[in-house]
């Protein structure tokens, strides 16, 4: 099975700090998509961002940005100016064509 590693189990930051969540994935594929999902305490997984393997240009969407490096199979996710409502478990999830492979998640706590 293709493995996803999120080395940070838990992170705590103070509100308004920036925070980066790391993700490293294994793949034998040349074409794939990468996703980040958020799971707040309510339990429902919420889509955040998507990136395809063709394009390594890093982007910003509101307070979210991501750094994709195909050469190192890393897809890191940054929240700028964190807010208490950002507290959740964040999952990195590559999609190799048939289904998502979720990482173990990083629990982010944003303290007021």
């Amino acid at each position: 099975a293709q493995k996803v590693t999120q080395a940070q189990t838990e992170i705590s930051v103070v509100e308004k700090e920036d925070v980066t969540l790391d993700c490293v994935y294994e793949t034998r594929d040349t074409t794939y998509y990468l996703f980040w999902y958020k799971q707040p305490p309510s339990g429902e997984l919420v889509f955040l961002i998507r990136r395809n393997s063709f394009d390594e240009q890093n982007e910003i969407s509101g307070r979210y940005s991501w750094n994709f490096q195909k050469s190192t199979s890393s897809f890191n996710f940054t929240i700028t100016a964190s807010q208490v409502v950002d507290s959740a478990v964040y999952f990195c999830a590559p999609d190799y064509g048939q289904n998502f492979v979720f990482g173990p998640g990083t629990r982010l706590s944003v303290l007021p």
Partner: protein
Amino acid sequence: GAGVSQTPSNKVTEKGKYVELRCDPISGHTALYWYRQSLGQGPEFLIYFQGTGAADDSGLPNDRFFAVRPEGSVSTLKIQRTERGDSAMYLCASSLQGKASTEAFFGQGTRLTVV
């Protein structure tokens, strides 16, 4: 509703019993996924439907688990002879086409507890 709906939200059953978990995907979504999530872990893939057929059932742990989607919309995950190790949150998701480029939308899950 506009989102993915799962029923029941909670199910407690005795070891050895049969259970059915239901998923109503977003209208028009041809792809439907079932995942299982144990406490403190990421969701684990079970099965993927494209329309009425199971395109990939490689994640089903054993033959006690079965899922159907007879009309290409609602899906039912069926677990026979439940075991305590089956206790988990069962998540359903749907996407517009099931291609890797499209995001999946998840329901709030069914928490199954086998006692």
